[in-house]
């Protein structure tokens, strides 16, 4: 746990040092495309964990800077949590995405229903 926090703090320090750019629309994306890229070309527990950590970092940094979390970040994190069987966390992230971006509601509600169906089947 300690190492994770240390790592997180170090990552944050590095990120806020050189990559803490905020777009005109007011979004902070961190290393989103890099960690997603690495997970896409080499899907593994490690690359997934790194991507999750980056999504969490984006949420945390956005909060610190008083920014709206970019579209899809909470939804994507919720989707990963759902696949890992953590339905409570998934629901919480979907709810946050819907309150930030009401236009995501129909999609995320359908996704929740389908996820439930999927877990009942298995």
């Amino acid at each position, binding site marked *: 746990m300690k190492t994770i926090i240390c790592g997180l703090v170090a990552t944050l320090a590095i990120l806020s040092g050189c990559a803490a750019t905020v777009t005109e629309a007011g979004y902070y994306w961190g290393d989103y495309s890099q960690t997603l890229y690495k997970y*896409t070309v080499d899907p593994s527990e490690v690359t997934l964990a790194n991507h999750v950590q980056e999504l969490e970092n984006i949420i945390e940094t956005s909060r610190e800077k008083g920014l709206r979390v970019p579209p899809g970040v909470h939804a994507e994190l919720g989707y990963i949590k759902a696949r890992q069987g953590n339905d409570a966390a998934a629901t919480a992230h979907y709810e946050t995405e819907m309150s930030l*971006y009401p236009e995501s509601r129909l999609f995320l509600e359908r996704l929740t229903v389908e996820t439930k169906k999927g877990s009942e089947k298995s």
Partner: protein
Amino acid sequence: MNKLLLLFLATVVLSGCAGVPVTDTKRNSYPSMYSDQKPISMIIVPAINESTAANAGDLLNVTVTQPFANQGYYVMPVAIVSDIFKREGILEGTQIKGLPASMFKKNFGADSVLFLTITEWDKHYAVIAGNVSVGIEYVLLSTETNEVLWSYTQRVVVDTSGNANSGGGILGALIVTAISTAVTDYVPIAFKVHESAVKALPYGKYHPKSGADGDDKVVNLSAKENAVQAD
């Protein structure tokens, strides 16, 4: 210095290819984007890949969310959406092309659907220089009316021959070329292509300049027309 020269040359070549660019304002080019048809959300469907690179579509997914979200649109989460398409057996945009756009309203709640066609995704090696070129066509359709809301064509060529001052002579340069023309280079280049293209896209709801950019004269009309011509 070398880089500057290449950049200059690239600019000359690029502007040469497109003939004399005729530009118009965003409002004149895309009037629906300044009406009540203007979408808030968009779903980006798997790309149509006309290039020789088999995994270009997958890599494009990684880069496409940010530029369009930064322009002020709610982009339906691409990582989830592409998973859903994969589960449905849809891996390539051509499989979706024939479907009515209203399907994306009904199933995803999206106001608009963005089709991407990768026309070029190549690397070229030369002895001491290499380059990567990426070309993409964008067509944004309304899911209510099936009408084309926005279209654009963009191509970027990036020199990957490494730093001019990297040293090591010709052999050094060769190694740098081979390494830096690796697949990872497509990510920043794809970003460049998107970022150039979205300059012609009217700002969406979540951008502070939404609705205020109608008079920006930045739309290259042939880039707008070329994207819809072949289809």
